[in-house]
């Protein structure tokens, strides 16, 4: 850690913050500070350099234009990629999963190079995937169900170096079968909601990766109640 606080970089919230993904950074910060682990959110705005010294990087969803601008900015200021090379933790949501890959192809068939952080390619699907998602952990990576809300046109194909985060039970995810990607300490998902408030076990997994210690249990009744409600509404008992 570069300072005595765990630094959570909220990357380009003004471009990639369309779907409340700021909430992911808040959840990480609160779940650490409530357990006595000092943490802070560092906003990295469009037009500003990206530091390579943060411990966790959170990248959210955005519109097509914003996504292209974000890639350009992150390529010009490669602090996050440098941090990834030394093992920093990165969460990529929606646009995040697309721009972290080798390439992404839009509905207009133009292919854009990605940041090459994970072994994947993305392309535009026929229809927009919108709605609640329920998925189960792939490879025992986390406990319980993964729940969230998806709203994307992209479909993602993983290469051999990346593995899926979960198997889809309800919804679309990457391709109707698997959801998200994990490669090293980079975790990607199509799910909003935002994803971490709905899935505290994923938040704690990222905290464990960042601090090297499994965090103490933290029981939030509202979160448990929400997970039960969302799973029930999707027709899957939690």
């Amino acid at each position: 850690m570069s300072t005595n606080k765990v630094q959570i970089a909220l990357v380009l919230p003004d471009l990639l913050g369309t779907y409340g993904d700021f909430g992911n950074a808040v959840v990480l910060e609160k779940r650490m500070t409530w357990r006595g682990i000092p943490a802070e959110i560092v906003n990295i705005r469009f037009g500003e350099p990206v530091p390579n010294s943060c411990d966790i990087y959170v990248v959210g969803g955005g519109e097509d234009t914003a996504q292209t601008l974000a890639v350009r900015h992150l390529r010009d200021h490669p602090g996050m990629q440098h941090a990834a090379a030394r093992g920093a933790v990165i969460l990529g949501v929606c646009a995040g999963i697309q721009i972290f890959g080798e390439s992404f192809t839009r509905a207009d068939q133009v292919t854009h190079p990605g940041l090459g952080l994970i072994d994947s390619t993305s392309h535009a699907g026929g229809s927009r995937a919108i709605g609640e998602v329920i998925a189960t952990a792939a490879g025992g990576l986390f406990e319980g169900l993964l729940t969230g809300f998806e709203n994307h046109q992209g479909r993602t194909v993983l290469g051999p170096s990346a593995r899926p985060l979960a198997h889809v039970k309800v919804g679309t995810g990457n391709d109707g079968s698997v959801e998200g990607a994990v490669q090293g300490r980079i975790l990607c998902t199509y799910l909003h909601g935002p994803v971490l408030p709905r899935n505290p076990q994923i938040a704690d997994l990222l905290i464990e990766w960042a601090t090297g210690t499994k965090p103490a249990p933290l029981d939030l009744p509202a979160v448990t109640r929400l997970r039960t409600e969302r799973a029930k509404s999707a027709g899957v008992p939690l």
Partner: protein
Amino acid sequence: MPNTPGADPARLPLRTAAAVRLGNMSSKLSQKMGLGAGGMIGGRVALRLDPQALAHLTSGRQVALVTGTNGKTTSTMMLSRAMSFLGEVATNHGGANMPDGHVTALSKQPDAPYAVLEVDEGYFPEVVRAASPAVAVLLNLSRDQLDRVGEVRTIEKSLRTALTSVTGVVVANCDDIMVTSAARDSAKVVWVATGTGWHNDAASCPRCGDPIRWEGEHWHCTGCDLARPRPDWVTGDGYLVAPNSQKVELSLRLPGKFNQANAVMATAAAAALGVPIEEAVQRLRAVSNVAGRYRTIQRSGHRARLLLSKNPAGWSETLTVVREADHPAVLVINAQEADGRDLSWLWDVPFERLRGRQVIASGERATDLAVRLTYAEVEHTIVPDPLLAIDAMPPGPVEVIANYTAFRDLNARAAQ
């Protein structure tokens, strides 16, 4: 008085006249059978029978259209009041803001020479084509119902294209980057500095994508020539400054800075149609309750003020209004189709401002809100039924903030 054009029903094409008659009958039937307020069904029937009904019903009238993400219903009511100085005004009170709602409203007042129509952003191009407005009012553009309406930049581009065909006056908020981009290419624009705008969706230029830079109230794109235009009208704290430098006190009964912005937009639009400024302001001052919004209900020893907020920009403004006193707050959240099914936007609302206040999370999605409040470190309890939530508060004033269907249902139940 200007010459008053009319939409004499006798002069409507036969097909439209028949469609309007059948539509009006359907509205009345719908009301009688208790199926609804009749705000849309009549228009839906009429449009099915005559797809050109909107064009025919607006033909010969002076039409003002009001669109934007927030404040449409309030601004439409204000503008219709202000325009009543000129003559009878047909308007779609109550938020039925798609073409079927417009046809219903116009059919009910076939002789009104003026019309003020609130228009859903997504339908704006279609309505512009049909109605050839004398004035188009563009309030603000920010994220709202992303799963239904779509993304802000897409809306901005479609409004921009539609506005270039408007030969009348475009009244636009120059403190909103998206609105400025949408309105700038129009033939005649009146710019209003409202002092309000949600900047989180506009870090990058809607024209070229480069970063936008703010210096005080001014903003400009660092890559192209898009910049804040010089305002013709300015909104001050409780007053407006007109293009002739005349300062007029607003003295509104509606609370909040955003209602002052709505009032100045409405006044500028009314002035473009020939209403004297003082006459316009005097008429919109009287507005105290817009389709139930801002009204206070008495219930079980409580005086509950009902406030509607639908999206992050709206909630942010409303949280500023309730900050004026430390009253307990009931927050009501639904996620039906008309609200948008995705509640991610709750995380864009600065609920942290409610810390230390007595708060109840309510509505069909009270639990989603409870999680948000937990992480905002706002102490709260959960009572899903909003009326019971009001009852659970200590006697006295209560602020009730609800999103669209939650507000609609609460308002209907409170009226019983």
